[in-house]
């Protein structure tokens, strides 16, 4: 099986606190892997490590078979061009309008001519259900759901091999959440892109995931398919999925994670 992301025994210590402690995971080509876990357990740090935004203390990360430690800065930039990211808050550039946000990676990362990039951007905006009429609108004038769609259009504009979704449905109403989840499935399954997502939304989890990993106190304590998540005896998974207050996850263990 061909793996696009391979993480082996990853450890991250920030400010003296152990954030990730021996995480290993593999994501196959075309697979959608979803990470779940309490807030503050290191999910976003894991994604940022894979994207090279945080340097891990130890362990290896391979993207498309290449160890990030062996890459030069230029090679790292080329690798990043093969990745798309949908940040939690969208992370759209406030000073640019919608079309400039979507074309940004194409123009500045790929060096595509602006006209050509605009054509691609309009296509991508339409593919996430947005009218090109909003091209000149600034992010501050958009609703949360529209901002997420624009951010998704920006993430897929470069036709990436892998997409990272950091809580794609957070702060959205149930209908918009369902729409965003459906768009994610369309992007990943429709375009054959591998995905690594973080979510707390159980409905979205069941919709977008192939494989699920549960993190707790910086360790991966369970991994399985979306079918297995409802049948497992693992008490952590059962409590997390049910959202129960009683179980192995307590406020005390949560507090200890940081």
């Amino acid at each position, binding site marked *: 099986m061909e793996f696009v992301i391979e993480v082996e025994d990853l450890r991250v210590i920030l400010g003296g606190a152990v954030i990730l402690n021996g995480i290993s995971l593999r994501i196959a080509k075309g697979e959608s892997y979803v990470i779940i876990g309490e807030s503050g357990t290191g999910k976003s740090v894991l994604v940022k490590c894979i994207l*090279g*935004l945080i340097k891990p203390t130890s362990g290896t990360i391979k993207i498309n078979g290449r160890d990030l430690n062996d890459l030069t800065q230029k090679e790292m*930039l080329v690798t*990043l*061009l093969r990745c*798309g*990211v949908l940040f*939690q808050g969208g992370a759209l550039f406030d000073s640019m309008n919608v079309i400039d946000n979507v074309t940004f990676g194409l123009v*500045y*990362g790929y060096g595509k001519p602006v006209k050509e990039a605009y054509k691609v951007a309009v296509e991508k905006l339409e593919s996430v259900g947005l009218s090109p009429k909003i091209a000149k609108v600034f992010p501050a004038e958009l609703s949360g759901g529209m901002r997420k769609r624009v951010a998704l259009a920006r993430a897929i504009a470069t036709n990436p091999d892998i997409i990272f979704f950091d809580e794609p449905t957070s702060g959205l109403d149930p209908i918009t959440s369902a729409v965003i989840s459906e768009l994610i499935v369309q992007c990943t399954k429709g375009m054959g892109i591998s995905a690594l997502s973080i979510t707390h939304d159980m409905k979205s989890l069941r919709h977008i995931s192939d494989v699920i990993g549960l993190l707790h106190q910086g360790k991966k304590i369970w991994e399985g398919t979306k079918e297995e998540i409802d049948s497992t005896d693992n008490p952590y998974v059962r409590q997390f999925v049910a959202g129960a207050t009683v179980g192995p996850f307590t406020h005390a263990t949560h507090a200890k994670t940081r």
Partner: protein
Amino acid sequence: MFLVKIGEIFIAFLVSIGNVAVFFVKTMLAGIIPPYYYKQIARQAVQIGYFSLPIVGLTALFTGMAMTLQCYTGFSEFTAETAIPSVVMIAITRELGPVLTALMVTGRLGASMTAEIGTMKVTEQIDALKTLAVNSYKYLVFPRLLASVTLLPLLVFINDIVGILGGYLVGVYYLDFNSANYVHNTFSAMTSWDILSGMLKGSVFGFIICLMGCYSGYLSKEGAEGVGRATINSVVSSSILILLLDCILTFILF
């Protein structure tokens, strides 16, 4: 215990200097390698050069006018009024022009650079830049640094012209100096070094304003409050460094 505390503060100070130096080296390394973001450089040039003109001009005009009046109060006691134009000119070109321009630009642009970059940092926009394969130092810092270092001297030069003009207006139309004599006394005392040294100071101050503004923005954390704190740090540290360097440069240049 007291000595330990002093030692800790000193080490923290050295670490900060080291971090600023690393930040500068990263910016220069990223900036000199193609591709160049000309649009960003032009945008920053307009922000820093063009939009600072009104505030710099007004500051210069009022300072030149006030300076002439103050000089007249003192000099008239010794019947040394003829020295006023040259004193005003030297004070403005060598000292007040670069320092006041730099302090006004710090308030206007240093704060705005920190707030903009700080907000981008806390809302993950800088991370987004990196994931789109764009070096944030090259895109955000280098254009600002280039524009600041090259345009601050021009702003200082404009400040010199307007400041001297302010002095002329008060001298001729309020204190009844002879117009031709005032102009003659101003320019006969002027050397090209007066102007150039002020512009050189302006370039150094532009470097400080931009470096501290962008560096503080990159250090921002913990949301809006963190951005606010970073902005205060940026303006305070830039202002102190400008005054300190002005003193050092004055010793070196004159």
